[in-house]
């Protein structure tokens, strides 16, 4: 679910009547043919609107909310929850914080920026009020396996991310931040919010989030070791 071409053209016209596709693609930082293709097929990616708004020094969140399916975006965007912020901290920084609280020197900033492997999954699991994958699959008319497939690639369509945020009752802007459509600032996340959330996290929630990441890491390690077993087996019997 992206933005309908008709609405997109209307919006571009409202910025500068009779804006050419060349100018749009220039503002969006896209190849002209790519944008033309999107318009021709009737669906324009949210990222195009965001990029154009950035180029024109407009608020990307405001620009998106001028479209019908995102009309409630501005109203629904609020400060992110602490749990959300903490879900977007890389395990290196999480484990670093655990070690710091055991008496090691403090790091001045977070080592890893957004997005990182499994960051979308981590956000979705954090805001999940229960069965959110099932809800999203119903909403988008796809299977839960397809959702998992997107998550494995650390992806989620912006529309789905906003729907997830709405369903979970958290800021819609967060959905656009974690999926990389908006920067943290554009999505109304406080500057340094992730670091602050990490520093102020209670010992229990810090350990809980670390345990969550250990589970994910275990899953990755298990998959890797299974692959390695096959390699050894083929070498042993056929090499």
């Amino acid at each position, binding site marked *: 679910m992206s933005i309908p071409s008709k609405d997109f053209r209307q919006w571009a016209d409202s910025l500068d009547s009779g804006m050419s596709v060349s100018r749009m693609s220039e503002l969006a930082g896209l190849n002209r043919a790519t944008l033309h293709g999107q318009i021709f097929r009737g669906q324009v990616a949210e990222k195009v609107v965001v990029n154009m708004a950035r180029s024109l020094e407009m608020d990307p969140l405001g620009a998106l909310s001028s479209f019908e399916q995102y009309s409630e975006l501005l109203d629904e965007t609020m400060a992110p929850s602490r749990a959300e912020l903490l879900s977007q901290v890389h*395990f290196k920084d999480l484990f670093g914080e655990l070690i710091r609280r055991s008496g090691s020197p403090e790091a001045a900033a977070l080592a*890893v920026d957004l997005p990182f492997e499994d960051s979308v999954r981590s956000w979705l699991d954090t805001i999940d009020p229960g069965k959110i994958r099932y809800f999203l699959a119903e909403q988008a008319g796809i299977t839960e396996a397809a959702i998992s497939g997107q998550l494995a690639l650390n992806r989620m369509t912006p529309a789905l991310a906003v729907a997830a945020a709405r369903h979970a009752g958290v800021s819609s802007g967060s959905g656009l931040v974690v999926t990389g459509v908006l920067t943290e600032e554009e999505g109304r996340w406080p500057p340094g919010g992730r670091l602050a959330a990490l520093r102020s996290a209670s010992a229990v929630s810090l350990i809980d989030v670390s345990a969550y990441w250990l589970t994910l*890491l275990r899953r990755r390690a298990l998959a*890797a070791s299974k*692959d390695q077993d096959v390699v050894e087996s*083929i070498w042993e*019997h*056929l090499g």
Partner: protein
Amino acid sequence: MTVVVLSSVGLLLLLILTRLSKIRVPGKRLDLIAVAAACLICVMLLAIPTVYVTTDHLLGGRNIANLVSHLLLYVVFWIVGVQVASALVLTRARSLIVGPVNRTATAAVTGATIWLFFASFLPTSSMGILEYQDQWTVQAYLVLGRLYPAIISGLLVVPRSWKTALSVPLPLLRASSLLTLWGLTLVVPSPIFEAMKPYVMWAATAEDVCAYGGAALVAVGSALTWLSRRAENRPDETVFRG
């Protein structure tokens, strides 16, 4: 054809050379891969007319060379079956191949092959005993010769093998596993083409492509497997990427 045969023979010779150090170690169990490669070399060389005629003259000129070639091919496929099933962790296929079912089947097929051969009238050397195809025993003998490899291959090219081969993290090893599976897949329809040979013109070509193309792909696959092992580019150990 001869080019495919000779290049496969070359590859297989290389494969054996790479394993010589292993073979020489006393007290070590028989190196099955080297044995299979040696047998396959003989089979492929016997597919070249001049080699076949010369060898057969030495064996008495009554097409015994053809029988030898058939039996060697059974050995090759027995070994390939066991090794590929073990390599790709196909537990059921492996137990079928090393178990009593296949032992009985192998004995029966070998017995039938030998019986059919001697029941046929094959007085002079003829490459692939093509001159005697009007005898039903020769027909049955030729189809049986392809049936055994085809059944073993059929046990190996199940969906699970492809899935396992595709999940191999090293690109070279993945390629070699897939080539081996493609080679085995080619072998599967070979008895059908063999049976069609006397009736349809193109069946002979199709049969050659299946049998020798399949063997060549398996040979290339083994060579690449060996290469990937030497290259020792172990999979990425950084599980904690990021």
